[in-house]
């Protein structure tokens, strides 16, 4: 079986190959999931849902280190169960939050890790290759194509800020830990959603309850109008492009106009101002435009919302590859200064 050290590793890094081995050899089966595993899975999702203070994260992570092997196994099993629940909830922004929790967890454990082999080995466990640095002054080296599988929302991860030479990236110890953390973020996020075939009925019930509970909490917490005045600099590239094309009097196709209008309504731009934006458009008709914008705004009735990035791509309106799944999400992040994500900076 597994040593307690292996179990502990698997529980710290539940997306690792070791963790999958543990599940397999313990005969993990979906229709015989113990209650405490399901409970732990729900806890993970709820905790992941919103950002916390650094100390709260540390408390959450460090509890795991003192667990017995039973508790450790519960943690290992809770991970795939949580992924199923999340997939059944089918809300991509929850996926990102969940991946964020594990990116933080990974960084937390790695910065406590004294064994160099464990650090380098974790890359392998995530299907990526890392080697001790062949150049002086660095801890590890990673091939460019492997590095490019990580997540790049943070400045420190951007390729342009790396020590890159002939297709190899050289990293110091702290940067290497951050790389592994961002790689785990990407691996967890891209593993979602999972297939929902043969999922026991009680999972579906739990996920529905969870979804309602979280959606309710979210609605209470978030209203785009609370972001204050409309700020053109915070527009996602797609909307900025349509907006400036309209202002420049260029012809914008129907899906373009429609999505811009719904976007502007959603971020709280007053109707008059939206109508103004359309003034420059060829064949502008103020009455018709105003009627349409008001319809979009819904005045309490049928309300239209702007398309997701995926839909925008289908309309061929997407012009960039922002780290979001919805143009509104982009706007919100910009307005909130994208503050929440960079808690794990070098100085910690």
């Amino acid at each position, binding site marked *: 079986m597994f040593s307690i050290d292996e179990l502990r590793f698997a529980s710290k890094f539940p997306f690792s190959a070791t963790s999958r081995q543990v599940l397999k050899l313990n005969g993990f089966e979906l229709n015989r999931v113990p209650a405490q595993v399901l409970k732990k899975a729900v806890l993970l999702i709820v905790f992941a849902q919103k950002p916390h203070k650094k100390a709260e994260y540390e408390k959450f992570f460090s509890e795991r280190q003192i667990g017995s092997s039973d508790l450790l196994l519960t943690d290992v099993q809770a991970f795939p169960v949580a992924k199923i629940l999340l997939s059944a909830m089918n809300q991509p922004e929850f996926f990102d939050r969940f991946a964020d929790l594990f990116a933080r967890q990974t960084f937390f454990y790695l910065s406590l890790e004294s064994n160099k082999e464990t650090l380098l080995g974790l890359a392998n466990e995530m299907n990526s290759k890392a080697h001790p640095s062949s150049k002086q002054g660095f801890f590890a080296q990673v091939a460019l194509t492997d590095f490019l599988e990580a997540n790049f929302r943070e400045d420190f991860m951007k390729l*342009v*800020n790396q020590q890159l*030479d002939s297709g190899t990236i050289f990293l110091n110890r702290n940067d290497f830990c951050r790389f592994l953390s961002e790689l785990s973020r990407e691996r967890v996020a891209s593993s979602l959603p999972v297939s929902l075939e043969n999922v026991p009925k009680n999972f579906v019930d739990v996920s529905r309850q969870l979804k309602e509970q979280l959606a309710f909490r979210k609605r209470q917490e978030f209203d785009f109008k609370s972001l204050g005045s409309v700020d053109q600099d915070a527009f996602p590239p797609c909307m900025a492009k349509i907006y400036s094309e309209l202002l420049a009097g260029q012809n914008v196709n129907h899906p373009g106009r429609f999505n811009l209008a719904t976007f502007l309504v959603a971020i709280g731009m007053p109707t008059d101002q939206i109508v103004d934006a359309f003034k420059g458009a060829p064949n502008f008709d103020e009455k018709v435009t105003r009627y349409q914008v008001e319809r979009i705004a819904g005045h309490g009735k049928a309300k239209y919302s702007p398309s997701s990035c995926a839909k925008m791509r289908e309309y061929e309106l997407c012009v960039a590859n922002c780290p979001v799944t919805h143009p509104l999400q982009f706007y919100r992040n910009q307005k909130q200064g994208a503050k929440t994500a960079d808690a794990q900076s070098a100085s910690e």
Partner: protein
Amino acid sequence: MVFGLFLKLFPHPWYGFGDHVVSDLDFLTERFRSFYQKTNVSEPPGVEFREFGYGIFGKKISGRHLNFVSLAEFNSFLRSQVPFYVSYSPAFYQYPANRPMAAKELLHSDIVYEFDADDLKTPCAQEHDFWECKSCHAAGRGVVEACSSCGGSSIAADQWVCENCLETVKKQVFRLVDVIENDFGFSDGLDFNFSGSKGFHIHLRGKSVQGLSAKARVELLDFVTGTNLDLQSLGFSESNNALRCTPFRSSHGWSKKILEALHELLESGDASRLAVAGSVSIRTANKVIEDKTAVWESVQKGLFPTVSSKSVVFWKNVLEFVSSDLGLSVDRQTSMDQYKIIRVPETLHGSTGLLAKKIIFNSLSSFNALEESVVFGNDPVKLFVSRAPKIRIGGESFGPFENQETELPEFAAVFLLCHGAATLAENHVPLKEALR
């Protein structure tokens, strides 16, 4: 069915020169047709997995989602339909003709970098471009941001290209190749071609590149353009009131590029430039230049020496100044929008009648696009030219022209007709109206 549009646009049989009046469009179509009839286009590789699009006169993409099972089928399309523009997807799809885009099922994708003279704002554009105000219809020579007559900013530009423009673009291409090979380490699968108009395309078709995710492509592009540079992440950090960096010997990527550019600035001995870069007095800048050897020695070891009471601010300004010149002006959308389709190499560009000629890297430095991409002959053609700057094409110079009749060799005539700057003299209906 897809070609219905073509039939609508080209309903007339070919009349030939004889005594009949030939429309400009017919004339060009026939020139293009004769080219495709005697040519066999052997691009792109993996033709059966690519999506194609075509354009008609005045519209680069008027239809897309086409697919060809072989190069032979593609060539017979070129011969029978004679498009003015042909584009293809850098992406390989399982079902290239399916719609919407997602139903094509992406397999993998090349990366294409595009450089265009328009993005580089070459000074010669002041001599060969024209502008016209969309509000008050004032017009003039050169490039303007706002109308000189009414101040309006809605400007139509009539842009031309010259050898100088293309030489400037080439310099960017060489710097890009340096990045691709020495930073990225991608040396295989690099292909180059003239865009057929104002720039060059660089295709990365190697295995290691084709599998990269959309996010990874953005990172490569940001590296190329120097977007999201963060001095601190690059190792330039402040401690004890001094700026430090990774020693030059162990610097790579952008930290190395920035230090090299700094070295160059110091070596140039240009104190006024340094003063501007660092926002300091010329006196302070002069002191740094006098000391440049010692300064550079210290920087190489990782410490920016004290030059004034505000040294840290000074050095940061200088670093930002030098790095802002280092990013390449590659067209972001071409590399980023995975659904964008681009000119098929070795086909004609409908705005110039020039060939989007493939180039072997070793001959790029001596490549003269405006000579070597000319495919049409010398038969004289009488034209009425509305407006053109002096152009140099096919090794000869022509113009400038303004509302005048002239006789030009066919290749130059095609160039002006494609630009929309001329019409066949025998037929005074301008192309644009013929299209209405």
